[in-house]
């Protein structure tokens, strides 16, 4: 592709780009515009759509019921991101500081669960969390038996109250906690991989320089390593936050009636209630929330990247 005349270049450009351009415009951009337009429409008398300009659907979103669902989704996604970061960053750091030939092995170990079907991975947690699941079998079985025995043989309120507690299953299934566990499990590799890429590129002579300049380890980490690996953290957080915010499968399988998320509302509006315009407005709300979350996060990220010099760290 070196000796192409301008005309040949134009032709080859057109040939190479047109299939994807066509596909993305017809099957992505156009559907997106339909949903945007639909969110200003009204539900017709017979279930169809009336294309007029109304803000009715967005006004319905302001209902406390939906505000609550949006807030719940936002906080569940936020908590999931934080937990993924707290688990994922140390793991990424650990892998990146192994000998090079071992790193590939550990990254592969990380990718196997990642490439396993999401439904299957969520289903595995049903086996663990439900009332007859692994945790509760242990809780109401051996742990209960031990607590009863200890309560009979030892003084104190602790053992008897523990034996009372363990008589009942923990009721983990169907809670926000179950959803968060499922989401963290599902998206953790998405956090680790970008963090790993950033830490692996990090030049460790910089942290040595900071230590030579009498920065302690915490300071070296906070002022040198952390800011320089921040792009990876930001990328990883986005890769976790966005799918968590729009989650459908996890709250559907692990959550209950009191832990509905935006994804479930969108599903029920489109597939059960058949109120397409309102469903479209909820989907718009999800995308707006996603953009807001991204902007806040990157603003905060840019502010903390000011100081990256080892000299600075020593001050």
């Amino acid at each position, binding site marked *: *592709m070196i000796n192409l005349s301008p005309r040949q270049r134009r032709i080859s450009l057109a040939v190479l780009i047109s299939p994807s351009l066509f596909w*993305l415009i017809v099957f992505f951009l156009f559907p997106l515009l339909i949903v945007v337009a639909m969110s200003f429409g009204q539900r017709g008398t017979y279930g169809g759509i009336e294309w007029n300009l109304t803000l009715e659907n967005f006004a319905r979103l302001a209902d406390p019921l939906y505000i609550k669902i949006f807030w719940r989704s936002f906080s569940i996604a936020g908590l999931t991101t934080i937990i993924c970061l707290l688990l994922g960053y*140390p793991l990424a750091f650990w892998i990146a500081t192994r000998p090079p030939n071992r790193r590939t092995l550990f990254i592969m170990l990380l990718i196997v669960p990642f490439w396993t079907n999401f439904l299957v*991975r969520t289903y595995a947690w049903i086996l663990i969390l439900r009332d007859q699941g692994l945790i509760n079998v242990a809780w109401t079985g051996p742990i209960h038996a031990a607590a009863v025995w200890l309560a009979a043989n030892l003084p104190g309120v602790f053992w008897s109250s523990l034996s009372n507690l363990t008589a009942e299953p923990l009721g983990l299934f169907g809670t926000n906690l179950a959803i968060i566990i499922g989401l963290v499990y599902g998206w953790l590799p998405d956090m680790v991989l970008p963090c790993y890429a950033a830490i692996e590129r990090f030049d460790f002579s910089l942290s040595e320089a900071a230590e030579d300049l009498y920065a302690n380890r915490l300071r070296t980490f906070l002022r040198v390593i952390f800011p320089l690996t921040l792009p990876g953290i930001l990328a990883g957080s986005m890769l976790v936050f966005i799918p968590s915010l729009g989650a459908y499968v996890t709250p559907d399988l692990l959550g209950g009636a009191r832990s509905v998320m935006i994804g479930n509302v969108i599903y029920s509006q489109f597939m059960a209630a058949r109120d397409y315009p309102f469903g479209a407005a909820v989907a718009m709300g999800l995308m707006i929330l*996603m953009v807001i979350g991204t902007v806040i996060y990157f603003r905060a990220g840019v502010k903390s990247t000011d100081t990256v010099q080892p000299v600075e760290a020593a001050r």
Partner: protein
Amino acid sequence: MKRGPFRHLLNLSALSTFAFLYAPILILILYSFNASRLAYNWRGLTLHWYVDLFQNRAIGAALKNSLIVALSSTAISTVFGTMVALVMERYDFWGKLPFDALLYLPIIIPDVAMAVMLLMFFVLAHMQLGLITIIISHVAFNISFVAVVVRARLSQFDLTVEEAANDLYADNWQTFRRVTLPLLMPGILGGALLAFTLSLDDFVITFFTAGPGSTTLPLRIYSMVKLGVTPEVNALSSMMILVSMVLVFISYLLQRGGGPKIEML
């Protein structure tokens, strides 16, 4: 960060995170060999559920649908995605920036949003929901993923190799066919493998764009899980874990063949 309690803490945390990642998978596989129908009873080992699984016609049909969708969407999106990756790395044109944004959007948009967009489009276009609409939808997100992977490979491409081919009187097509394409191959195969996995894995978008008779494997698993936990689901899930292990291993072999480091996505 090389000495002292930090190191032990880091070792411990890495070890426990790996345990967290693998424990549910191992528990699932273990349950799939459990002779008891009730998951919380252990009655010894059996292969009974796997035998059931291979005799289940509905699952066979779902697997067939999944493979049709995954193979065709992978083929289309690999060709289109590679072509568009070449454009983005090698050409400058009017509107490149907005097109770049459009190319990234299917990757970052929540899948529920993309699913309802496509459903509404197909409904308004009066298209019959079925395998065709699922394939169209999968291509719509896979083009972007293939393009990202191939672009990563292209950005590390040494242009002097092509110049050398030209100096040796290779014409443009020969240069592309004999030099550029073989060097790009690990990236293209990596992109294809990713597209195949994503297509095989997708539930939400398929769920919204599927019609009667086009149930794929994830849709089948979903309805089985919704009906209740059964040993058959455990066996099916374990088989799928095995398949993903094989796929990861293949991608590892591909990348070892001179490719760039582990692809991010």
